[in-house]
């Protein structure tokens, strides 16, 4: 087992001052929606924290998540947080391969049993016993079951790991599912997005390192601090929505004026993520800012929710055939009800006529009264 130096020492080694760490802590506190007063405490615990073991498995995925998370524009402190993590196993990044790699994994899992974080990108195929995605002759399902058992918590990174993502899109040939469908006993943090925002993973790690626990989650298992509001609520184009100013095509005057993309299918109103505030590429931009509506990629089943270019309040138009059918059914039932009412009325009339005849007898049928004088 390697000697564990603290993050403080490590940062000092990189020439990063305590002041800079404090600044980062303040930023982290803000992004986690913690009061600013917590920042020194965060800095303190971070600099004193020991390296946390992290085992990272890639399942049925495109590696886009990893690309996003390791993409480096200008290395900042949050980058270095990764250096503090003891990334004990990551197939794509690690130098070891083959049997050596397997050995690393087994050792890391054994040495840190019960303490390591298990990060996963990619969904888990379950069809035919899970044979659609295997590493070293073992199915993802098996690996997940075994490694989750010894993990302190599981991080489902990306929409595929969180909710099944694109592999789960209809018709879902591999019966792909998200991590939460298979792991029931361990705390899971979903960090959805296709790909997810790197800062969100950093934030979750900071939270874990600082407080020793996972951040507060919403009903879909996402950190509330980042997924508490919709893109729509934070969008800089929101005032145009409220004023009813919409772009109607991607090259009309509204689009040039930067008006709301709602009508062009923006899923901002139903998508919870931090894109509009944290943005991408070092806070440069995000899809709506570059003129395209939000796809809703961090929401469950986003691929199966109809066209990206169909606006939220509209579907594919009314199902006229079905409406016509419903009207025909209504006419049928209503007609039957009217027919039944006619029959019961006729029965009443017969009954009344019978009584009437009993009362009035033969006089009813013969005219006894002659013409007047």
């Amino acid at each position: 087992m390697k000697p564990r130096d603290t993050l403080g020492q490590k940062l000092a080694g990189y020439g990063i001052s305590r002041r800079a760490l404090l600044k980062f802590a303040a930023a982290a506190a803000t992004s986690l929606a913690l009061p600013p007063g917590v920042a020194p405490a965060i800095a303190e615990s971070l600099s004193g924290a020991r390296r946390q073991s992290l085992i990272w498995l890639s399942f049925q995925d495109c590696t886009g998540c990893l690309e996003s998370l390791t993409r480096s524009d200008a290395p900042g402190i949050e980058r270095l947080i990764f250096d503090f993590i003891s990334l004990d196993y990551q197939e794509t990044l690690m130098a070891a391969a083959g049997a050596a790699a397997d050995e690393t994994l087994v050792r890391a899992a054994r040495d840190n049993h019960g303490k390591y974080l298990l990060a996963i990108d990619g969904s888990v195929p379950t069809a035919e016993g899970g044979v659609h995605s295997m590493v070293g002759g073992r199915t993802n399902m098996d690996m997940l079951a075994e490694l989750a058992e010894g993990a302190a918590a599981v991080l489902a990174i990306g929409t595929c790991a969180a909710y099944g993502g694109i592999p789960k899109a209809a018709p879902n040939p591999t019966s792909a599912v998200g991590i939460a469908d298979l792991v029931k006993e361990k705390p899971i943090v979903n960090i959805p997005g296709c790909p997810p925002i790197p800062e969100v993973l950093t934030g979750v790690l900071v939270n874990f390192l600082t407080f020793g626990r996972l951040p507060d989650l919403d009903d879909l298992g996402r950190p509330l601090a980042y997924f508490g509001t919709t893109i729509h609520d934070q969008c800089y184009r929101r005032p145009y929505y409220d004023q009813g100013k919409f772009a109607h095509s991607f090259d009309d005057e509204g689009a040039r004026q930067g008006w709301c993309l709602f009508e062009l299918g923006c899923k901002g109103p139903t998508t919870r993520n931090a894109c509009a505030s944290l943005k991408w590429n070092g806070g440069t931009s995000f899809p709506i800012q570059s003129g395209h509506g939000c796809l809703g990629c961090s929401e469950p089943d986003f691929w199966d929710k109809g066209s990206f270019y169909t606006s939220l309040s509209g579907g594919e138009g009314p199902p006229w055939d079905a409406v016509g059918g419903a009207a025909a059914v209504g006419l049928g039932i209503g007609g039957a009800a009217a027919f039944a009412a006619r029959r019961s009325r006729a029965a009443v009339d017969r009954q009344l006529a019978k009584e009437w005849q009993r009362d009035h007898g033969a006089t009813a049928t013969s005219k006894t009264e002659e013409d007047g004088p």
Partner: protein
Amino acid sequence: MSGMPPSLAPAAKPGAKPATRRVAESRDQADRARLDAAMRGFISDFGPEAAVYMEACLHCGQCAEACQFYVETGDPKYTPIWKIEPFKQAYSREMGPFAPFFRAFGLTPKVTLGELEGWQELLYDSCNMCGRCSLVCPAGIDIADLVEKARHGMFEAGLVPGDYLGALAGKEQETGNPFGISREDVRRALLEIGRSHGVEMHVDEPRAAVVPTVSSIDLKMYPASIAATARVLNHVGASWSFRTDGFDADNVSLTAGDRTGQRLVTEAIVDAATRCGAEVLIMPECGHSYTEMRWEAANTVGHALPFRVLHMSEYLAECLDAGRLKLRPVTPDPEGRGVTFHDPCQLSRRSGRSDAPRKVMAALGLDLHELADHGADSWCCGGGGGVALINRARPLRDKAFAIKRRQVADTGAGTVIVSCTGCRQTFEHGFKDAGGETGVGSLLDLVAGQLEEDGKTP
């Protein structure tokens, strides 16, 4: 004729073998059977119109504000649409589009006979079927029409205020008039009126272009009105005759809810007028008999009527237009208080002829001070729809009459002109019970007194 409902069956003629009184007989029916009979009676002449009314009610309560009984008492039970509540429920359960659900899930409680008995007061004592509620209803529900149907149900269940209204209807089935006066007595009474008022009377002539009908109330209480009818018809030079075989227009059966009786009375009059080749049938100054004959008789007998049906004031207005009726203006009353006019609901609101009596009054040169609510908006006197015939309802009737009394007083007029025998009676009673001194005059009587008889004085 089995399989034919009584309302469609050829009816027995008045004067034929006395009919059994359903009212008395139905008293003996078991409660259950009577309840069923009530609901049957209600739904059996339901068509799309009445069904739409049933579906359309919003429970907005505006009809209460249009009803003299609610307005004057403030008792919510007099809300017009509430008066047919048990029957609404029966409709939902038996006939409505969702009837199977209502039955299967017991969504509407079955009405008990006791409840229905409680409803007798609401349907008979406190509804004039004046249609004011029908006019205010935002859903266009003709509540007056529904009350008439509900009364059919009440009659079938033997729940007519039997001591009075039912007995009258029973007599009417036998003789054609609610007082049970025989044809010969009617004939004698008419001729006697002619003699005592010095007017030429035509009774039972085989051919007549104009057949007037009267209310039997007139025979007893206002014989002068019958004389006035004769005098006016003589004046305009019509070929006319009373017909003792189709004489009484009251149709108490209609207000009682007895469809058989209603049909008998209607058919007798239609037959009598048809037999003598009438061109015009004049309905007396009486409310519901007019709407029945004018708008329903053709449907009752199953063909368009071969003559026109006119209210007396319509006939007078027509004669004025044709120049056959020449009137001297009335001498203004010395105090100069003028007169006011009470619109009979059935003529004004229900038939749209508010103009006819006003044309006649204009010809008489009357100083007319209109009531605050007049024409189609007029308040009912409170006696219509058979309510005037129910003794126990008199205190309630007087209460409902208060609104009319106030409006009459507000005009400052010394006399109320009415053009309906029922209204006339209600006004006289109402003013008497309230100790007022406002006079009540009949439009017809007034006209008969102002005829320009080619130099002769009448």
